[in-house]
Every structure is written in structure tokens, then in C-alpha cells.
């Protein structure tokens, strides 16, 4: 480093929050004794304007080039003071926060002296680290102001129209022949019972007419490369064997085609021709030949005539698009309960799913709107609607599918209004869930129309082989006994499940999925539309099941979120990223690429024979690669090995055997520790915490160094497995690394309780405090002598392991 560090330490009283426990005067005095500290100042409220002004003044007056603020959690005010030092002309990354409130005054109020000692260590660690900081520059990447939308259901349609109206170009990639999604399959929509296609159809047409939207239908997303603002997307357009432009959508070809096949759009209850559209309102209105069924008689070619729209030689076509953001709106699938023998689905003719019923009631459906039984074509006189088929079942789909209560109420109302007293309708339910606007009122309407509600679970369904009528045996929870219902038709409200292909799309986009299989949002409350990948957003049922109004809202929300990127000429990237030193990278000589494999974001490319390289804009700064690299070729800016080791050394300078050195990840365990502080859960003072962004950053060398220096215990705190990690899977990589390390250390004679990996969420303040109490008990039980003896025994090996490290 060229210039000598000149450090200013600013100790905050935080009113009495800190000063009430900690001897801030002694602390400030202590700070002045630390190397390179030129000034240490106390302030009542450092974050208030006068406090900030004090810092700015001191920087100028004392010509400071490093700043430590000893106050609250960096999770609270790090951005504030970055701005402060920047205003004083200093690089914002030349400042560090010493958290003496959440980690000292608040969690050790009854032992002020010990708390003060701990605060001193915390400041010492911060000073040690800040000395090694280097100025960093926020990067900017240009933004392509076009969006890619994957999935053209009602959610995707809403996003597309909003973005297009804002003036952005939108590519809408739809896997099926037509946009519209499930809503286009429905008859009427709750709670107002308007005709589904009548309200969605015009929107679909708007999409096709909008000058800013290009529909790429019957197509698949093959690959996505790049990063926020700069995605490169490969798409395969599947051959329809009918050319979009000359096809007038008149459908004469459909008339002459001899081949019929089951229409999936009609849930395979009706048929369509080998050349056809799935439904008459399809958008785009371009016919498609299903080659699985076509016999190549060319009757369609003949009738198409001079239009020459049919081309049997069409091949799949790959195109490449450049976009700035990607919105995923791929919706859901329906669970087909073939595997659950209880319901007899697929076996009994008169057991159908709710979506099949939608197609039966629909006037344009395969029966022209007549609800008739498959067995005899007759209208059923009694219908039993069974709820939660597959949903809310820990052995199947644990979650509630959200809208089935409402669609079954809708079906009851429709049946009652259509067939009046000619039909008896029963709903067999566990809980009736009718929150949201107008839903409870709709429930009443169903009741008033004479629907029979029975709270209970179906336990058995039997078919009369002659009449094909069904007997539903159920547990009536209200009566507490078994009842039997005679039904001419049974309708199953089956679970909705993640769309087929969700796993593949998740892989292509590097987006995570939750335990339920749906795409995972970046934060369940505050970022319900974002994903962990910058520039990729979610809309509609693909993120979790939701009805139409909610899907539309989220679609519009996704458009707004995407616009925050698309409306910028450039996008800023935090410089806390990983960088590879090509001279040290061993991939040049031997096949390695470990970093590329471990990076949760696919941000590293390591082609054979070449040094690995990090795509800065894709790196999220977890540091997993840094810890994994076998030749220490990767550095994480602002969290370098040298910087972290300097904290470790500072923490363990005195009485190391009494200390627990904790590496805590910023998002879960550090936040959990903060919460222990804010909730004033008291625990012993032995912990010295090193904050890392992700537990994946924790290098084995850090543990070796800590033990070499004599640490009493070492703790690695991470987010819960498997899905809580803020960086997708940093905790998974950490676990693999630490499991192996723990085994090795134990073999070498380390008491297992001295090295722990714990998973603490941001909500588990109590757990964090308890964990500390427990560890301190164990520390006491082990005794200083035993710890020292173990450390002596370990030392030669640790020294050997660390010998290759220069820092």
C-alpha cells in the first residue's frame, strides 16, 4: 500500500444504548492506542447529522484515509456512513463498522466490564481490518432496455402489456401454440362469474397487436447467458409446419383433415384435427400440424392452395435475443390423481377433475356446455365435489393450492344455477378458505343456492358396476361419524403443482426453487417478485399458487420491478466481488474448475487450459469460490484472506483460550445475533464475531489460524439448509467443506465441541443466545488446560497447513 493508513475511530454512545453499559471513555482511550489510529472521538449519536458532520470534519482536519465507526450493526447503518465518508472525499469502501451495540452493550448489560473488554476487541478487529482496505469502485454495466417474458398466461399477459405500454420492447416466449394459459381453459371466473375467455380474449388480442410486443409462440427457452441488463437468450421455435404470415386462420384445412386426436386443451375429453388450433380464440391464430398424428395425405396443402401456408419441410429454428431483464410467468400444472387409488380416477368413468368439469360446463367445450357423464351421456342428478385432493397432504403436496375452495364454490353455484333443483351438490371439504375481496359473499351465495357443505375427508369411493354411480364414504368431522353419499358424478379439486419443466428452467436461469418446487422469491415478504438473480423476476402461479386477480397484480408488479432496470441506461454493481489471479490459477496446468462448479450463480468460466475468470456482473459476492480454490487464486474484494485473518489475529491476541471465534454469515446468523442483541437476550461475552457475507466464504485456513492462535472454540454460523442461503447454495458448499474438516480435526485430537457449524436464521435470536450459553458451558467444562494441551498437540499440523500462506 502506497500511503500510510491514518485511521479515525468514532465511538457512538447511542444515547445510553451503548454508553449505559460500556465505558465509552475507556474504549475511546483504548482506540487511540491502536496502530495507525490518529484520532478517536466520542459522540452521543453518530448517525445523526452532527455526528456525521464530526466525521467529515475529522477526515479533513486529520487527513484521515480510513474510518471506523464503533456503533450499531453494519446491517443497519453501513450504507449511511459509506455516504458520510464519501461526502468527505474518501472512497466509501475505506470504512468499517464495529458493532458494539448488538454484539456488546445490548447482549451483556449485566457485566459492563466484560462488555467493555469485548467492545475493545471489536474495535481492535475493525481497526485491523480497515488498515488493509483498498479503495473500490462501484461498477456500471450498460442495460439493454428490452424484456424477455417466459410464459403467456394471464400473469405474463399483464406484465407484457404494462411493460409495452411503458415503451419497452417485450419478447413473449410461450411454450404452447397459443398464449392464454389456464385462464383460457376456464368457463367462468369467481367471484363475479364473468366468462373467462370473454375477459381474457381481448387482452390476448391486445398483446398480439401491440407494436412493442413480439409473441414467440410454440417455442422453448434453450439457454440464458449474461447478467442483469445484458442477457443473451437462445430460443428454439418449434416447427408448426404452417407459416404464420400466409396462414389466414380460416381453418379450411381443418375441415379436410382426416385425423383426429385427443385435445389436451379439452383435458383430452374432446378431439382436434391433426391440423388445427387448440381453441378458436387462439393467439396467434396460426394453425399447427401435429406430426405425431399427421399421415401426410396433403389434403390440407391442396385446400390451402395459393396461400401456400403449409410447409412440411419446416425445421426447428434457433434465434438469439438480447434483453436486459427476464420475467418468468410459467404458471402451474394440475395433479392427476391416478396414483391415489382412493379416488378411482382413471378407473371409474364418472370421477373427473375440476379442470375437466370446467371444460364440460364451457359452451365451447367438447360437450357444448352440457355436463354429462362419460358412462352414459346423461346429466348427473347428484354431484360430490371433493376438496384438497393431493393438497395439504404431507405425503403428497404439503401446501394449500389456494384457489380450489373458490373454484369448487364456483362449480357449485354454476351447477345449481344451471340445473336448479334437478341437481344436488355436495362439497366435501376440510377447511373452507374464502379470504380476499368478494369471496366470503360468494360462499354465502353458494350456501343460499342450497349447496350441501360437509366438513370431512373422503375415505373410500365405490362404483356400482351397473349404473356406474358412485358411493362416497366420508368421515363427517362435525358429526364425528362415517357417512355415505350417493353421487352420479364426483369432481376432484386436485392440487396444482409446479409446471413441468420448472426444474430445467430453474437450471437455465440459475433461479432457486422452494421445497414445494415453485420458483423462489428473493425475500418472502419484501422481495416477493425478485429472484436471487439480479434482473430476473417472477409473476403469477409459478412463484406460488394464486388466483387471477392476484396473478394480474403480481404481473403488473413484475413489470414495475423490471422497469427499475430497463429504465436505467446503466446498472450499478457492488464491487464486493471475487477476482481470479490468473498467475496462481492452476486450471492453466491441470483440470480444476472447482470454482466454476461451486459458484451458485454460474459466474465463473474456467475453460480447459485457461485461467478461470469471474463475470463481475454475475458475481453476487458470496465468496464460496474463494474458500474453495485449492491454490488461493481467488480474492473477494473487501473480504480478502488478509483482511479476515487480521480480524482473527486481533480477536485472539489476548486470552485466546477463553474466546469463541465465530464466522457469521451476514444474512442469517449475523442477523440472528443482531436480533439476540436487539431483543436483549443476554449471553456470555466470549464470542468474537467475524462477519462474512456468506458462510461459503469461510476458508479452512481461517479455522486453522484460529486454532493455531489458541482459540478456545470456533463457530461457523450459516443459514438453514437447504434453501435459506442468500446465495442459493453457499451454505451447502460450506457444509461439505466443514464436515470433512471436522472429521480431520477430531482425528487429530480436537474435542468435537470446540469446532461447531450451526444454522441460525435471522429470526432465531433466542437460539443464538442459547447457543452461546451452551458453548460457554462446554468451554468451562473443558477447562483452559485441556484446551492448551490440545492446541499444543495440533500446532505442528496447523503450522504445516498454513505454511503455504504468505498473508
Amino acid at each position, binding site marked *: 500500500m502506497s500511503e500510510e493508513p491514518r485511521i479515525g475511530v468514532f465511538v457512538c454512545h447511542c444515547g445510553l444504548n451503548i454508553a449505559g453499559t460500556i465505558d465509552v471513555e475507556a474504549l475511546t482511550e483504548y482506540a487511540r492506542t491502536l496502530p495507525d489510529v490518529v484520532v478517536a472521538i466520542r459522540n452521543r449519536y453518530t448517525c445523526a447529522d452532527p455526528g456525521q458532520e464530526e466525521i467529515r470534519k475529522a477526515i479533513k482536519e486529520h487527513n484521515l484515509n480510513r474510518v471506523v465507526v464503533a456503533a450499531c450493526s453494519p446491517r443497519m447503518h453501513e450504507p449511511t456512513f459509506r455516504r458520510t465518508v464519501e461526502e468527505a472525499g474518501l472512497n466509501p469502501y475505506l470504512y468499517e463498522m464495529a458493532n458494539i451495540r448488538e454484539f456488546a452493550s445490548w447482549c451483556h448489560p449485566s457485566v459492563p466490564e466484560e462488555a467493555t473488554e469485548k467492545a475493545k476487541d471489536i474495535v481492535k478487529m475493525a481497526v485491523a481490518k480497515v488498515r488493509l482496505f483498498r479503495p473500490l469502485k462501484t461498477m456500471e454495466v450498460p442495460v439493454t432496455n428490452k424484456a424477455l417474458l417466459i410464459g403467456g398466461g394471464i400473469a405474463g399477459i399483464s406484465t407484457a402489456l404494462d411493460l409495452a405500454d411503458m415503451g419497452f420492447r417485450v419478447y413473449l416466449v410461450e411454450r404452447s401454440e397459443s398464449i392464454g394459459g389456464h385462464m383460457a381453459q376456464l368457463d367462468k371466473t369467481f367471484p363475479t362469474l364473468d366468462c373467462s375467455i370473454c375477459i381474457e380474449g381481448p387482452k390476448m388480442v391486445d398483446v398480439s397487436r401491440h407494436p412493442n410486443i413480439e409473441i414467440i409462440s410454440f417455442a422453448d427457452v434453450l439457454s440464458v447467458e449474461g447478467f442483469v441488463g445484458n442477457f443473451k437468450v437462445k430460443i428454439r421455435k418449434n416447427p408448426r409446419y404452417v407459416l404464420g404470415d400466409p396462414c389466414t386462420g380460416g381453418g379450411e384445412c381443418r375441415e*379436410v*383433415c*382426416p*385425423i*383426429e*386426436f*385427443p385435445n389436451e386443451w379439452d*383435458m*383430452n*375429453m*374432446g*378431439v382436434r384435427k391433426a391440423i388445427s388450433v387448440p381453441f378458436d380464440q387462439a393467439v396467434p391464430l396460426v394453425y399447427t400440424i401435429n406430426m405425431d*398424428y399427421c*399421415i*401426410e*395425405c*396433403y*389434403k390440407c*396443402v*391442396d385446400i390451402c392452395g395459393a396461400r*401456400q401456408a403449409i*410447409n*412440411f*419441410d*419446416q425445421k426447428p429454428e434457433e434465434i438469439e435475443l438480447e434483453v436486459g431483464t427476464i420475467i418468468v410467468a410459467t404458471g402451474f400444472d394440475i395433479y*392427476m390423481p*391416478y396414483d391415489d387409488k382412493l379416488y378411482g*380416477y*382413471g378407473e371409474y*368413468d*364418472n*370421477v*373427473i*377433475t375440476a379442470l*375437466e368439469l370446467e371444460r*364440460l360446463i364451457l359452451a365451447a367445450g*367438447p*360437450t357444448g356446455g352440457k355436463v354429462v357423464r*362419460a358412462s352414459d351421456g346423461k346429466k348427473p342428478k347428484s354431484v360430490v365435489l371433493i376438496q384438497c385432493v393431493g393438497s395439504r397432504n404431507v405425503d403428497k403436496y404439503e401446501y394449500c393450492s389456494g384457489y380450489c375452495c373458490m373454484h369448487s364454490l364456483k362449480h357449485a353455484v354454476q351447477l345449481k344455477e344451471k340445473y336448479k333443483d334437478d341437481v344436488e351438490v355436495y362439497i366435501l371439504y376440510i377447511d373452507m378458505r374464502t379470504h380476499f375481496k368478494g369471496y366470503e359473499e360468494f360462499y354465502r351465495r353458494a350456501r343460499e343456492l342450497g349447496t350441501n357443505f360437509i366438513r370431512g375427508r373422503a375415505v373410500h369411493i365405490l362404483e356400482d358396476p351397473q349404473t356406474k354411480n358412485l358411493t362416497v364414504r366420508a368421515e363427517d368431522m362435525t358429526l364425528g361419524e362415517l357417512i355415505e353419499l350417493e353421487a352420479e358424478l364426483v369432481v376432484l379439486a386436485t392440487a396444482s403443482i409446479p409446471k413441468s419443466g420448472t426444474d430445467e428452467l430453474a437450471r437455465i436461469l440459475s433461479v432457486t426453487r422452494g421445497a414445494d418446487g415453485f420458483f423462489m422469491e428473493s425475500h418472502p415478504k419484501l422481495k416477493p417478485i425478485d429472484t436471487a438473480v439480479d434482473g430476473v423476476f417472477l409473476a403469477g402461479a409459478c412463484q406460488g399458487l394464486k388466483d387471477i386477480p392476484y396473478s394480474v397484480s403480481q404481473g403488473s408488479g413484475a413489470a414495475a420491478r423490471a422497469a427499475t432496470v430497463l429504465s436505467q441506461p446503466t446498472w450499478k454493481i457492488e464491487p464486493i466481488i471475487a477476482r481470479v489471479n490468473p498467475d496462481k490459477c492452476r486450471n492453466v496446468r491441470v483440470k480444476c474448475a472447482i470454482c466454476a462448479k461451486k459458484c451458485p450463480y454460474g459466474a465463473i468460466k474456467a475453460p480447459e487450459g485457461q485461467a478461470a475468470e469471474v463475470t463481475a456482473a454475475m458475481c453476487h459476492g458470496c465468496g464460496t469460490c474463494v474458500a474453495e480454490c485449492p491454490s488461493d487464486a481467488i480474492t473477494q474484494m473487501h473480504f480478502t484472506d488478509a483482511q479476515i485473518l487480521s480480524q482473527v489475529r486481533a480477536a485472539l491476541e489476548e486470552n485466546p483460550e477463553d474466546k469463541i471465534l465465530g464466522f457469521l454469515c451476514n444474512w442469517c446468523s449475523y442477523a440472528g445475533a443482531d436480533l439476540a442483541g436487539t431483543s436483549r437476550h443476554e449471553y456470555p461475552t466470549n464470542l468474537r464475531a467475524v462477519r462474512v457475507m456468506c458462510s461459503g466464504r469461510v476458508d479452512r485456513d481461517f479455522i486453522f489460524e484460529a486454532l493455531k492462535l489458541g482459540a478456545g472454540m470456533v463457530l461457523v454460523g450459516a443459514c438453514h439448509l437447504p434453501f435459506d442461503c442468500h446465495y442459493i447454495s453457499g451454505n451447502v458448499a460450506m457444509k461439505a467443506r466443514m464436515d470433512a474438516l471436522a472429521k480431520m480435526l477430531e482425528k487429530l485430537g480436537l474435542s468435537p465441541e470446540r469446532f461447531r457449524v450451526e444454522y441460525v436464521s435471522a429470526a432465531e435470536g433466542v437460539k443464538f443466545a442459547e447457543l452461546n450459553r451452551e458453548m460457554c458451558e462446554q468451554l468451562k467444562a473443558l477447562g483452559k488446560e485441556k484446551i492448551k494441551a490440545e492446541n499444543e498437540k495440533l500446532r505442528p499440523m496447523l503450522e504445516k497447513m498454513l505454511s503455504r500462506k504468505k498473508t
Partner: protein
Amino acid sequence: MPMKLERNETDKELSVRRILHTKNYSLTVDKTLCTGCEICQAICPKEAIEIKMLPKVPGEKRKHATIDVDGEKCHFCGICSSLCPFGALKVRVNSEHVFPVVKTESFPELIREINVNSTKCDIKCVDCEKACPLELIKVSVQTPDGKTVKNVDSIRDKKKLRVVVDVKKEFCPCCRLCELKCPEDAIRIKKFFQGIIHIRQEKCPEDCQDCLDVCPIPGALFLADDGKVHVNEIHCVYCGACRVVCPEEGALELQRTRIWHTPVRSGAWNKALEKLTSTKDLTKELQKKGTTRIRDSVKKRFDLGDD
């Protein structure tokens, strides 16, 4: 109701069914009629039909090959049923017997030209009925008001009686046995397949008469004094059941050169034709009809994407 596929097989019948909520489809093979000739397997566009050889049991007559249908592949187009020489296959939609591909002229029907001039018939003759190996003919004598007469001798005014020859056309392979047995020259039959069949006796293994065993038409093949099978082309219907079982490569050659069928312009038919005849004969067939226009249009369609 979700879609169901069903399959049923008895000694006499095999059927596959696709049942939808609103419609059902079936393909039925009458196994008593099927000769294992392989024509359906060759022309099925979805390779849903498999003709399986049965192992030969020493000392027993060779059995003809049997048919199997894959219900998942079959989509009930009716191509097989429109060309089966023996009428063994039937496609039904909602229980009604249909030829979907024939209705749209995507595929032809075989033309079975069978003309019987029963005014020539002697009221006591039943030669054709006896001659038909497939028992498709029923000869009856009727009074002017259409009543069937059981005992002709009991009727005095024999002049007014009328002979009715009823042929179940849809099952008839047009072997012409009846025509040749008819003493009054009352029957005229045109074969729907024409072709060449040739046995190279020198290649036939000793004592083999597998082809003869399976031939559905008596007299089309016969054992001559040299102990080898020979052909009488007059009765051969060119179904090819013999070729399927012939164990010796090149011993039996069969080629269809002409197919008598309803006119169609169809790519599917051209493909089938290619399989039923050779390419050389396809050209011949097209030329014979004088419809080079069709050939060109087909060619144009095939080449569409190239230019």
C-alpha cells in the same frame, strides 16, 4: 373422464380402443379372416401394426403369421382397414364402422369389381357358392315378391323364380374361383391387385411347402409332381401371405404392379403405394392413370422447402 386406452384379445378377435369422455374409437381385427399378409403393417403410417411369425412346429402345417396392434400408436385413421384384401380390419367411431381417410379422400378404397348376372343362372346351380373358399357367397332362389324359396321343386311356375347371388363383397379378395367354376359365365371379377409371382423351385428346401400351407386361396399354389410348389397365377390374389412365411431368400418373388382403387390425390397414398409396389411400378401406375399432374403436384409438395 380422462382418456383411456383399452385392449382386448380373444381367439377370434383383437381390438384396441381409445375412449374419451365424448367419443370413442376402436380398431378390431377379425383374426379368423386375417391371413397375415403384412399389407397393413407395410402401410400403417404410425407403425402401429406388427405381424408376428409363429414358430414352425415340426410335422405340422405352417401357420400364417399373426397380427398385433399397438393401441398407443394407432390413431384410428382407417388406412389399414381400407386396404385389407380380406376385410379383416374395422375402425369404428362411437361404434359406427367408418373409413375416416376414405371419407376425406386421403386414401383410396380397393375397388372390388364383382359383377353377377344372375339372370343367366340356372335355378338349381350353386357352383359358385361351393367354389368360394371363404364362404362369401350365398345363392338363393326367390319368388317375384322377394320370398326365399326353400324347395324349388315345390314351385310349379319356375319361370317366375329369380336367382339371387349374394356376395359379401367387403371380405372378398377377388380370387376368381367362382368365376371360373360358373357354368353359365354369369360372374365377372376383376382382381384389385395385379402382379407377378414366381417361385424358383431350385431354391426351395427339400419338402418345404410353407407357402402353400398359408395360402388362403386353394389352387393358387399347388404341389406338382416334382414335389415342389408351383403357382397358378389365375387365382393368386397377390396378398403376399406366402412371401411372409417363405424361409428361403429369393425362392419366392412377389411383386404387385397395379392396384385397382378409387381415385385419390394424396401423399399418404403415394407413400403406401411405394411400399406396396416398387418405385418403378409407382411410376408405371401414375403414368397408366395418365395423371402426371398428380405426380408433379406431389413432387412439388415434397420439394416445397427446397427453393
